């Protein structure tokens, strides 16, 4: 249940990158969450909604892209998508594999609407 703490970090980082005017116009925060990162996307989503409420960025939505777990085999060199229950290369069955994707908890970009000029 550290999703709330992750959500608070996302909001802090977004705030650091935006002026107060931009914060009010923020509509979307895009993040990439690896399948092997121990973050549950649904819990991150509700954590974010709770944490952003009442802040200058409360109109912002969180868009989560889940990144599959991929390993590169040190024997045959192939990169394969695996489930996190068996760290074996599906091509050659070697267990000498390195995780190349699926650990990330990354904030990708911020989407801001243009201010309405009266």
């Amino acid at each position, binding site marked *: *249940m550290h999703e709330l703490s992750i959500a608070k970090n996302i909001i802090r*980082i977004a705030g650091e990158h935006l002026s107060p005017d*931009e914060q009010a116009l923020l509509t979307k925060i895009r993040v990439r969450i690896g399948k*092997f*990162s121990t973050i549950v996307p649904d819990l991150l989503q509700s954590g974010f909604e709770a944490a952003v409420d009442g802040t200058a960025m409360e109109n912002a939505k969180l868009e989560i892209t889940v990144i599959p777990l991929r390993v590169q085999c040190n024997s045959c060199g192939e990169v394969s998508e695996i489930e996190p229950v*068996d760290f074996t290369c599906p091509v050659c069955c070697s267990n000498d594999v390195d995780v190349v994707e699926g650990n990330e908890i990354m*904030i*990708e970009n911020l*989407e801001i609407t243009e201010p309405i000029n009266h």
Partner: protein
Amino acid sequence: MSIKTIERKVLQKNDEVANQNRSFFDKQGIFALNLVSSPGSGKTSLLEWTLKELEGRVKTAVVIGDVQTSLDAERLSSFDLPIIQLVTNGSCHLEAALVKDALADINPEETELLFIENVGNLVCPSSFDLGEEMKVVISSTVEGDDKPLKYPAMFRNSKVLIINKTDLLPYTNCDLDQLRTNALKINPDLTIFETSCVSGEGVDDWCNWLEKQVMEKTWKNVSA
């Protein structure tokens, strides 16, 4: 509409402080371990046996993280070494900044080995680097043999697995071979120890290994 590209790790701030902790450990020649497990697997009991076994052999300090209370620190208070209790006040894991604050209370000249006992939790602590040399995951026989499959990130991110409460094995459905197989399926590089904190069986193997790691770290520090 405009897009502001950030491409930044959400936990970058924690990682930066963890790297400061790591530099501190490297500079001072301190071998730091992050002990992780579910609640009740015997982290504190194992520490009691370990501290007893290493008394007079390795200069040790302990940082203990708990959601509430200083009960664990009180349990270890009979040992003549620095025991620092961290209370997270609800948070399910230790973060690097908390550990950094605790480091102010240890004398690096008098420390070769630092145990950081994390909050009992097999999920969240795996995401937070504390600057440790390695994570040591403890899984007790009463938890069954499928924990590595259920909590793969923790077992994949650890270097050592200690299978604790081997004395209770006859009273459980835990198949020790299956537990090892499951753990090695997730992480074939795991070094595995088996311990009982009732009889003390296996504690000497673990402590001998630990002492060797500490000596290597100290030696690396001296030769650098």
